[in-house]
């Protein structure tokens, strides 16, 4: 229950951190909030030879909206700052709604969104929320950068598209168009636990009141956060009635692959998915009115 030895570097500049990662590659891990990495190190599941601590790089602790309404969240922005931001709560309410379900206040004071996404736990809420909000991730490495869509970032349990020399430097979340409504719902055994099933719904009504856009994503529903695209597409052009939601929920079963746990069998997880999809769609539609 004590970490194995490692060399610790805590640079003040992003460039220095990227240079260290380029030098040490897979032997090194970036340390952000430490709320997933340090437990793994305490268990010695993770034994990085080098830790590149990002906590002293002030330029990574950023949170703000660009002129076109995109929310940009820096690698060292902690959950606590995001969940307490009034503009975030108003413009991207699903983010604040889902953050309240992430672990406990004492974890959210330290934990970062970027660190959570790099950990890529398929039971975690935030990867599914990023898919639902069509987020894009800015990956930086020494001498270069690229933008990756959230849906292309998660490759498997604890596996991402990050190369050995790359850092998830910024999260970009586009503005929700007028007429949008969102909802995040989950069921967990205890407050703050990982969800047995979680659902993020984004709906938009057109001028005629019919569904003009729909996105539906789930956590704890497979090896990666899943987008239930067929279920979401089934809603397009509908009047978003209870019957439309039930039809979408019936389609979700074929799109998920829950793995089960000591807390919930795959059959129970499938049941929860149906119930939560119906409720989340209904709530999102209400909010889109």
């Amino acid at each position: 229950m004590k970490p194995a030895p490692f060399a610790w570097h805590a640079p003040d500049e992003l460039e220095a951190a990227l240079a260290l990662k380029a030098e040490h590659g897979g032997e090194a891990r970036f340390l952000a909030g430490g709320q997933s990495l340090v437990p793994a190190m305490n268990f010695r599941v993770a034994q990085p030879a080098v830790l590149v601590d990002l906590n002293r790089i002030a330029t990574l602790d950023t949170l703000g909206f660009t002129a076109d309404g995109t929310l940009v969240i820096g690698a060292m922005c902690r959950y606590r700052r995001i969940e307490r931001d009034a503009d975030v709560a108003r413009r991207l309410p699903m983010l604040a709604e889902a953050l309240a379900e992430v672990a406990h206040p004492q974890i959210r004071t330290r934990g970062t969104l970027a660190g959570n996404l790099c950990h890529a736990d398929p039971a975690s809420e935030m990867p599914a929320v990023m898919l639902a909000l069509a987020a894009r991730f800015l990956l930086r490495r020494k001498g270069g950068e690229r933008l990756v869509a959230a849906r292309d970032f998660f490759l498997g349990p604890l596996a991402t598209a990050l190369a050995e020399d790359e850092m998830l430097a910024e999260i970009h979340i586009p503005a929700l168009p007028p007429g949008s409504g969102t909802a995040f719902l989950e069921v967990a055994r205890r407050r703050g636990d990982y969800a047995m099933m979680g659902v993020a719904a984004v709906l938009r009504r057109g001028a005629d009141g019919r569904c003009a856009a729909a996105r539906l994503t789930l956590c704890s529903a497979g090896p990666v956060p899943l987008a239930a695209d067929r279920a979401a597409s089934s809603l397009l052009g509908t009047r978003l009635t209870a019957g439309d939601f039930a039809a979408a929920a019936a389609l979700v079963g074929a799109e998920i692959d829950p793995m089960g746990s000591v807390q919930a069998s795959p059959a129970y997880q499938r049941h929860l998915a149906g119930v939560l999809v119906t409720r989340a769609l209904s709530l999102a539609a209400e909010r889109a009115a």
Partner: protein
Amino acid sequence: MKITVRINGANHTRDVEPRLLLSDFLRHDCGLTGTHVGCEHGVCGACTILWDGAPARACLAFAVQAEGHELRTVEGLAPGPGQLNPLQQAFQDSHGLQCGYCTPGILMTMTAFLEENPKPDEAQVREALSGNLCRCTGYQHIVDAVLRAARAAEQRKPNA
């Protein structure tokens, strides 16, 4: 490596390995054994301290990271030896502890909580308490103690 960490207003300078957890630094290197260690993976909350005023798990940070920050532990609550602060007094008055192992972490969580929410309702207290486990399962009396401390603080206010 040599580090200086500020805890309860006093500087502690020690020579440590980077892998030393902050929880072990507090207990073994500084002798501040009031911070308890339960699960060592961030679940139980026994090691909760205040890091720049915000509650955090001491088992999920390295001591070397704490340089330049203000830490507060349960030893920093009482006004003097043999005395209790109002929150600690409320825990005694409401029987808010049984074995006491989880108590330091809960006191630190609730110290920060009450600073931000001086007049909480029961649901808010339970939400704030959700990150601290009590295996004696005496949660009701803990909730009572926090509400009692909030009421007492309200009554102490001038012109209340």
